[in-house]
Structures are given as structure tokens and as C-alpha cells.
């Protein structure tokens, strides 16, 4: 059985999301770096595997899959005892609800603001727009007020145990904190103590800490 290959970028946001879940489940993987700076992800040889021309995708012993949340779900399905996707019908429905909330209420503004804030933090020479960042963060503030209401009643977004729905908030949940200080940023406000509690727990997980300097091939845990 060949080692799972993750085709992506060591600092790329969506590659980090997949790596976090691979680490959560102790799955050995090889990072194959795609030269995005030189447009390798738009070349025909790449588009054969990922027709939208984005990173990452995986090759799991010949099985090709793209879309990070689909990849993460696939890995979790191979490790059902992890509980990262609940199987009991009502818990599963509430998990799907939380995963959809991340996609429709968190990601649209968090990814757009987060990507630009990350570019600025890394010092890349790529144009950013402070007004665009501010507008998306304003939208996200309101969404997080609804998160505060949800997280005041339960420990995680889907219920009392951690699931993929929580982990999907990484890495953009971290990148949006680059606007502000460590003690006062959008994920860590005095007015939203439950969001702050949940966020702090998420970013203390070994799976997130493992790749702070970038995703790398991991063969042993």
C-alpha cells in the first residue's frame, strides 16, 4: 500500500486544513509540493487531477480526490472510531448542520479576509486591499455573535464532542486573528467569551501546532 500523497503547498491554507486532519488521525502522508508561483496548478498535467486548477488534491494508493472538506471526510470515514464524523442519526444531522454553517456563514468572509491578512503577515508582494479586509471582518463579527449564542450552550459547534466541523474553521480562523493583538482580536473578544474559549482549545491541538512552520511529509507519529 503506497503512502498517501498530498499535492499542495507547505504554507498553503487548504493544504494545512487537510494536514491537520491527517495528523489528528495519525495518517502517514507525503507532501508533494506544487509550484503554484510558476502556475504549475494551471498546467494540463495538473488539471487532469484537479480540473478547477486549485491545490490540494490527494492520491491515496491510486484514488484521486480534491476539495479539502471532501478529503477530510474521506480520511475520517476510514477512521470511524475517531468520532470526527458522528454516526448516530441526530448527532450526524447536527454535525452536518455545523459543517454547513462553517461553509455558508464562516468561510465566505473568513477566507477572503484571512487570505489577505496572511499575505500581509508573510510579507508576500501580492496586492491586498485594507477596505476589503475590513468589510469582510465586519460581516464576520456579526456571524460570530451567532456563534457565541450557539457555543454558550454547547462545547463545540456540533455538540459536546469535537468533530470535523470545528476543525474546518482552521486555518482561516487563525488568519483572521492577524488583525488585532493576541489578547484582542476577532476570535478573542471579551464580548464573546465562548467563541474565545472554543477557539483557544482548537489552536492548542497538537494537529494544528505540528505544522506552524509549514506542512511537511509525516511518516511517524
Amino acid at each position, binding site marked *: 500500500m503506497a503512502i498517501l500523497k498530498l499535492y499542495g503547498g507547505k504554507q498553503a491554507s487548504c493544504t494545512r486544513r487537510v494536514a491537520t486532519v491527517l495528523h489528528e488521525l495519525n495518517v502517514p502522508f507525503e507532501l508533494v509540493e506544487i509550484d503554484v508561483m510558476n502556475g504549475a496548478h494551471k498546467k494540463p498535467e495538473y488539471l487532469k487531477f484537479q480540473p478547477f486548477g486549485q491545490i490540494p488534491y490527494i492520491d491515496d494508493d491510486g484514488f484521486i480526490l480534491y*476539495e479539502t472538506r471532501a478529503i477530510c471526510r*474521506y480520511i475520517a470515514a476510514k477512521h470511524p472510531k475517531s468520532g470526527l464524523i458522528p454516526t448516530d442519526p441526530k448527532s450526524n444531522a447536527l454535525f452536518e448542520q455545523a459543517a*454547513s454553517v462553517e461553509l*455558508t456563514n464562516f468561510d465566505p468572509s473568513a477566507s477572503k479576509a484571512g487570505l489577505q491578512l496572511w499575505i500581509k503577515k508573510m510579507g508576500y508582494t501580492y496586492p491586498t486591499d485594507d477596505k476589503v479586509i475590513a468589510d469582510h471582518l465586519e460581516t464576520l463579527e456579526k456571524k460570530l455573535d*451567532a456563534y457565541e449564542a*450557539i457555543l454558550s450552550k454547547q462545547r463545540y459547534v456540533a455538540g459536546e464532542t469535537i468533530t470535523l466541523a470545528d476543525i474546518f474553521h482552521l486555518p482561516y480562523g487563525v488568519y483572521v486573528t492577524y488583525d488585532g493583538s493576541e489578547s484582542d482580536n476577532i476570535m478573542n473578544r471579551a464580548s464573546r467569551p465562548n467563541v474565545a474559549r472554543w477557539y483557544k482549545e482548537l489552536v492548542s491541538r497538537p494537529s494544528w501546532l505540528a505544522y506552524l512552520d509549514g506542512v511537511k511529509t509525516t511518516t511517524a507519529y
Partner: protein
Amino acid sequence: MPFKIYGFPPSTCTRRVALVCKELNVPYELIPVSIPKGEHKAPEYLKRQPFGVVPAIDDDGFTMFESRPVARYLVAKYGKGSTLVPDPKDIIATAKFEQAVSVENNHFDEPAGELFLQLVIKPMRGLPKDEERVKTLLATLNSKLDVYEMVLAKQPYLGGDILTLADLFHLPWLYGLTEKAKLDLVTSRPNVARWYQEISSRPAWQAVKDGA
């Protein structure tokens, strides 16, 4: 106790849930939440759906929201023998289904929804179209549908060989863009045309396309 949908009949997401109820022959009661009157932002409704959008559901006391998870729940609970969601024991079919669901959400939904806003909703409200934005959105949507054309040349449905929720989720926006905004998204794309013709002629969609 009938399945209750708290929604607004013409709303995209309310029709998405009603469509799956019809597919599975699940009778439902639609409890109106008026968007024009702002009822979706009223405190009683926010208790059901903290983000203040429709729909929300109540299935004999079990409450939830977000139209696509509701659709998955309907199939899990009422869809015995339904192939709209693959058997979770088939890990590969499930992964391909999840990839297709993710594609709909990440590549299609945003440009399609915003185009509908610009081309149908804004004129209805007497607001001016943003022509530059429409050009950008059309370019994005067309580039995505070009990929769909390639994918659907090799397989009949977005998740593979069987029709699933991933295909049906596209109906409200595609119907709106082709029938109300009068966009031609399919003439130059025979595989997308074939696929759209099939999913849009399903009786379940015909029953709810103009109102849940």
C-alpha cells in the same frame, strides 16, 4: 405529526428542502416566515435559526437548519432505499459524492447566487445593476461550467454514475438563472445541457420550482 418547514415559498433554500421532501414523498407543512416583512430577523425566529435566514425545520420536535444538511437528514430518516446519498459503507462512492457536494458549494453557489441577485432581484426592487460585477460573475460562472462540461462528459452525474443530492442542490439557482434571468448557460455545453434537462424535468422539482 407532519414535517414542518419554517420558510418563505419562493426562497431558494426553502425550495431546496421542499424538493427533497417531494423526492422522498415526505408530506410537509410550510409555516410562512415572511422575508419582506423581516420575520426572519424577529427574536422568535432567531431562536430557531441564529443566523436569521430561512428555512428551519421541526421534525416532531427535532429542530435544525441549513437546507443541505436538512436534505441529508431527510434522506437518512425517510429515504429507505434511496440512492440520493450513497451508503456510508461505500467509502469511495461517498468520497466522490462529498467532492461533488463541495464543488456545488465552493464553485457554483456563490457566483450563481450573486448573479441572480444582480440580474433578477435588483431589477425587481428597482435597484441598478452593477454591470462590472455582472461581467466578473459571468466570467467566473462560465469558467466553472466549462469544468462541469468536462466532468459530465465522462460520467452522467456530478458524483458519478448515480443521481445524488449533489446534482439536485443546483436546481434552484440554475432554474432561476436560465428561466428568470434568461441566461444561456447550456447551449454551448451539450453535457451540462443533458444533465440539466434531466434533473429539471423531475416531477419533484416541477412541483416546487415556483414555490415550496
